[in-house]
């Protein structure tokens, strides 16, 4: 295939990917915003007479063990899952970048101490850390957010530290110092715009993992508690019913999880293409 | 009227054109260069960035970027018809090349003695037990002090000037008839620069080797070369004996370039820049690529590239309205 034709098809594929990513993201955001208002049934109200019904016209995704409509619950859970994911990633991004930037700029002891802290965090698997946080802060959604944030922090810290440390010696940074910029302003106004792209791309990908983290934690009973609707906890409930044949209980929340993660992954790719220095 | 050169030419090029990219409508980077060099001649190819001087020199050395598309009516280097027979015979054998950043051109994990030995073996200039003394002789030739001890030195242990000398030794190891030096002293200290160039000149004379010095520094060209070829935006604009070029530049670009050289100016006011910039290569590029920056341009300059005019002493130029 001639060179130009190959390039064009690659660009088209990227464009299609971006369109799909944006469309899906919009769908999720709309679902999060409007879920509670458009859900056909009350996601929390039990209806024992309707329990364990397969998908039908009246219940598109079927019902669970308490007779609650799964479609409604999946819709409403969108808001909770997205909030957990965004909150966790936002905390990880800001605190991680701040720590890393400080370590990268200051060097010496601050760099070493922060490095040890990051290494320590990385030594803990998510679930162990989450249980520890839950033990300390109580078993609530905040604990899930905090635990997820802590676990995702190291990437931002390392990326920021390495980028800031390198840019610190750049001539444009010295030029800003010559003009009287203080170190804090240099890092924020001069360096950050140049190191933002990988951080932003990672945030997007991170959102997918954060949702999975949150779902995993509620699967094992941390954070979200019944009767709240959350994809992870719904999969957990559904897992109990796999062998009794009520497949719809875990498939639909599971699919929602999967599509959400895919969406953020695609968004990350699209963002990477957008921020590609060659295109700017 | 010019008589054909008395000696057979070492290099004879007609219509050298080099393009990049697949757009045939785009003007070529090097635009129809004609060049003759005689054995033993020391020529400087002078130009600013974008002049095409490096591309032309790399063509002579047979190391043109594979992505470049070359075409020419004639391309004979050291008796080899490159268009017919290809580059293999040329590289390293008839033509030696010295680059700008010598330390980058040397293998950092091989001692300089071994690198020289490799070259001797590859060209069959020496073999077996004759190699070691040949290496020492080569290092002595380029004035490296204490050569017997230095053969085990690694490039990282040597200064920039020393590496350049080693590069020269490697270039000379194949006994070439032409030496191409592409900005060999740019980035080196002035004192090192003068030593290296003096060495280059001396070696070229001793071996009766032709040499082409590519440089952006007109003063350097004048100090070391007999003949200076001035290139601008891929075209040769003037080709004259060094002293004649400075005494009486015929092409407006050459005159402006001379006037821009600090060494020639008495005061800052005496310095002059050249208006405009090297032109982009597209549909608007004029036939003489200096036309849009030239104070003497006439409509003909934009539509037809002036043919070569040669005056006394072989002072040649391409200009419809020479100075």
């Amino acid at each position, binding site marked *: 295939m001639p060179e130009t034709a190959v390039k064009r098809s690659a660009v088209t594929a990227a464009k299609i990917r971006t369109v799909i990513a944006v469309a899906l993201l919009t769908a999720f955001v709309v679902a999060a915003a409007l879920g509670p208002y458009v859900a056909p049934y009350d996601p929390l109200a039990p209806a024992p007479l309707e329990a364990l019904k397969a998908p039908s016209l009246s219940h598109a995704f079927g019902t669970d063990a308490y007779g609650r409509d799964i479609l409604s619950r999946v819709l409403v859970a969108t808001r909770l899952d997205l909030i957990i994911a965004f909150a966790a990633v936002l905390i990880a991004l800001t605190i991680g970048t701040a720590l890393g930037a400080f370590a990268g700029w200051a060097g010496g002891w601050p760099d070493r101490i922060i490095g040890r802290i990051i290494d320590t965090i990385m030594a803990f698997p998510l679930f162990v850390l989450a249980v520890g946080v839950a033990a300390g802060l109580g078993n609530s959604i905040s604990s899930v957010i905090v635990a997820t944030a802590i676990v995702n922090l190291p990437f931002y810290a390392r990326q920021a530290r390495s980028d800031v440390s390198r840019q610190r010696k750049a001539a444009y940074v010295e030029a800003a110092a*010559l003009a009287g910029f203080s170190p804090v302003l240099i890092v924020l*106004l001069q360096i950050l*715009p140049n190191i933002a792209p990988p951080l932003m791309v990672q945030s997007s990908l991170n959102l997918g993992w954060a949702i999975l983290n949150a779902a995993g934690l509620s699967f094992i009973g941390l954070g979200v508690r019944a009767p709240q609707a959350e994809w992870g906890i719904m999969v957990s409930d559904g897992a109990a019913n796999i062998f009794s044949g009520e497949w719809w209980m875990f498939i639909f929340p599971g699919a929602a999880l999967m599509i959400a993660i895919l969406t953020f992954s695609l968004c990350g790719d699209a963002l990477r293409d957008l921020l590609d220095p060659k295109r700017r | 009227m010019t008589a054909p050169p008395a000696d057979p030419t070492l290099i004879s090029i007609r219509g050298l054109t080099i393009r990049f990219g697949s757009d045939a409508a785009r003007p070529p980077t090097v635009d129809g260069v004609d060049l003759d060099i005689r054995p033993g001649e020391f020529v400087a190819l002078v130009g*600013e960035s974008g002049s095409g001087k490096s591309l032309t020199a790399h063509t002579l050395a047979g190391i043109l970027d594979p992505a470049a598309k070359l075409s020419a009516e004639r391309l004979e280097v050291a008796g080899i018809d490159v268009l017919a027979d290809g580059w293999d015979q040329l590289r390293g054998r008839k033509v030696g090349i010295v680059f700008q950043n010598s330390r980058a051109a040397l293998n950092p994990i091989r001692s300089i003695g071994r690198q020289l030995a490799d070259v001797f073996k590859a060209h069959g200039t020496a073999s077996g037990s004759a190699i070691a003394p040949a290496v020492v002789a080569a290092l002595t030739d380029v004035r490296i002090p204490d050569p017997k001890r230095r053969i085990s030195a690694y490039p990282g242990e040597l200064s920039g000037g020393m590496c350049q000398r080693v590069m020269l030794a490697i270039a000379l190891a194949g006994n070439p008839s032409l030496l191409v030096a592409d900005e060999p002293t740019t980035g080196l200290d*002035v004192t090192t620069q003068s030593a290296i160039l003096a060495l280059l000149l001396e070696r070229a004379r001793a071996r009766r080797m032709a040499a082409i010095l590519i440089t952006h520094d007109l003063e*350097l060209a004048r100090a070391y070369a007999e003949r200076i070829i001035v290139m601008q935006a891929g075209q040769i604009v003037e080709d004259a004996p060094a002293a004649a070029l400075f005494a009486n530049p015929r092409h407006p670009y050459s005159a402006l370039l001379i006037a821009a050289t600090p060494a020639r100016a008495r005061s800052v006011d005496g310095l002059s820049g050249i208006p405009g910039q090297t032109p982009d290569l597209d549909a608007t590029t004029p036939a003489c690529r200096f036309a849009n920056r030239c104070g003497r341009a006439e409509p003909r300059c934009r539509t037809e590239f002036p043919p070569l005019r040669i005056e006394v002493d072989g002072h040649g130029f391409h200009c419809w309205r020479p100075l």
Partner: protein
Amino acid sequence: MSSLLEVTGLRKLFPAGHGAKLHAVDDVDFDLAEGESLGVIGESGSGKSTIARLIARLADPTAGRIRFEGRDIGAIPSRKFAGDVARKSIQLVFQSAGDSLNPAYSAARNIVVGFGSIRLNSESREWAASLAGEVGLAPELLDRRPHQLSGGQQARVGIARALACEPRLLILDEPTAPLDVSVQATVLKLIDGIRRKRRLSLVFVSHDLDVVRLMCDRVMVLYLGRVAEIGPVGEVLSAPRHPYTRALIASAPGSATPAQLPGEATSPIDPAPNACLFANRCTNAVPECALRRPQLVDVGSSHRAACLRL
């Protein structure tokens, strides 16, 4: 007239492993009067760029004093100097202009950095445009990013940013080295014009004798971190007294008295404190040159050279 800048005993040492020290700047003294232009000439390893950075307070001296407008600014650590009242009065034009511009910002915003901010409101935009005019930068280039500008245009933006700080002292570290000859000529003329119009004092670091001859009133020749010769540029270049200065002049292409400088420079790591470091390459050397470090002696009107044979 008191000097704008007084440098005494300036030293800068870098660790070179195992307790050894690299003497980048080794006891340098010089003054700069207001409105004067001092050229700093030297080859690689001479310490000229280090001196530029020390005076610009981007680095801290190991020893010595830097007095600017009567105040010892060398004593203020470089990381604290950003807030000092003298900070904006001393500015530096970098060798690689492209690197000295923030790649994420337009030329206009880069110039505005010189005002201490990155905000482009109508007021700062107007100032940026007037500075662009002063440095000969076409207004339509103001919205371009550095990588979209040519070398000469980048150099102009760098100069504009330095001027935005309203400096009294402008240090230029080989500002035209990477530029084509014709572009260099234009930029040098620009710098000279700005210097005269704004009555700036210049420290012009270069490896090129001719550039210094054109741009400077006085010149200081450095060798391995020490001052070899200092004096009025015309006098130093026409009647050099230090053998190294003579060698530099002789090495320039087209020199009337061409000659090569033999040997190699001695190591700047832990150099002999009581010896002339040029002795191993000097045609004038005598045994005493290895026993005493030459001090600067007067050889003309405000012309001094450090050689035992004078």
